């Protein structure tokens, strides 16, 4: 019926962490370190980082959610034939948009995919390998990091629900006693 639908202060960071997708870790990590100066600088450098919440080819406009938690704001950016990497403006995906002001309008110059950064020593697992582990009943602890309601509607076989804020609160109490057991975390993907 419809084609589509719908994150800087250290104190607000926690809120930000609670409610955003996989690819957001990079931002969070950066903001963890007290670099308020850098954040300001980035605003001056005309860069929006965040999740694409809308894109219209007819209106040649992108909406991107920037900032965390209550500070989150949705910014509208226009694009034109000069805009590079417009294919990376995909609703639900994280992107970095470099823009420029032209009169009263804001135009995207470059759109880049914002890649998730894995903590050191942590590796990515793809669908094929994970599904083989599930099929073979391989010993692992599969964790769904999304909010409980999302887990309720649809989760992977054998997964347990531990939303990020709960893991923060309860810590290792919810995880296996054996620190060498394989842990696999997933969420709503880059979408």
């Amino acid at each position, binding site marked *: 019926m419809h084609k589509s639908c719908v994150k800087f202060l250290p104190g607000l960071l926690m809120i930000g962490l609670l409610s955003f997708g996989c690819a957001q*870790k990079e931002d969070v990590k950066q903001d963890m370190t007290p670099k308020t100066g850098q954040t300001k600088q980035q605003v001056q450098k005309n860069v929006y980082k965040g999740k694409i919440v809308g894109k219209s080819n007819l209106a040649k406009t992108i909406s991107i959610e920037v900032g965390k938690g209550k500070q989150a704001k949705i910014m509208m950016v226009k694009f034109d034939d000069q805009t590079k990497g417009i294919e990376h403006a995909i609703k639900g995906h994280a992107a970095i948009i470099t823009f420029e002001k032209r009169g009263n309008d804001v135009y995207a110059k470059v759109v880049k995919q914002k890649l998730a950064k894995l*903590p050191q020593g942590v590796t*990515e697992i793809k*669908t094929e390998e994970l599904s083989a582990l599930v099929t073979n009943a391989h010993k692992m602890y599969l964790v769904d990091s999304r909010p409980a309601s999302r887990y309720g509607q649809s989760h992977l076989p054998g997964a347990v629900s531990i939303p990020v804020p709960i*893991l923060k609160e309860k810590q290792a109490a919810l*995880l296996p006693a054996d620190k060498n057991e394989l842990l696999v*975390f997933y969420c709503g993907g880059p979408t």
Partner: protein
Amino acid sequence: MSTASAGLAKKFGYKNIRVYLDGEPDWAKAYLPTYATHDFIKNGNVVLVDVRPSNEAVKGRIKGAYSIPYEQLDDRLDDIARNAPVILYGDQETLDAVEDMRDDGFKFVSLVQGGFAGWIASGEAIEKGPIFNTEIRWVRKLGKGEVSLADFRKAASGEDKDAVIVDARTKAEVAELGIFKNTINIPLDEIPARMNELPKDKKIYVHCASGARADMAFKELLKNGYKAKFLLLNIADAECDCEIIRP
């Protein structure tokens, strides 16, 4: 979220951590089964379907389930909204049913955690006997910021004088297809520059062709302090039924 969790687990001293970045959507796209919790099945706005043969369903089925034996599923698909969360259970045919439905454009299809046997083992409610609920009823709940069609119609007809409609389509679309009554055309890309034309003390209902641009305009207006909502509807649908001023 998963990377944040992985970071925490690492902090807690776990040595063997991996992240499935593609996540649940990719898993579903690969036609792999996903499961719904009993709580979600009982309390969610879902369409629960028993795909076992009807004699099995008569002997006992999950309370509130519709009985659509797998052989009939294909013929009944159009009775179910594509955006409804559909939950299936049955025997060996269930995985085929999930695949068929995902293939047919159903966005949210999952299975009963533990299957029917698991449901009974958990002591959850079942019902027995003849099946009367054959017509599938499911009404989508309005999302955040959405205006109901009824309220939108009142504004378009002029009955609700406290609301203003904004058409976020391009001038070319309006010139070709016409415009609703009591409506101002401000194309999405002109919203930031022209929103001062709109009253802050009235309700603003934004529509476009399908709802995508209206959603974007709604967010921009909301950010700027307007009492905005948006219509998530393909306005070409007969369901819309608002008077159009033809060009």
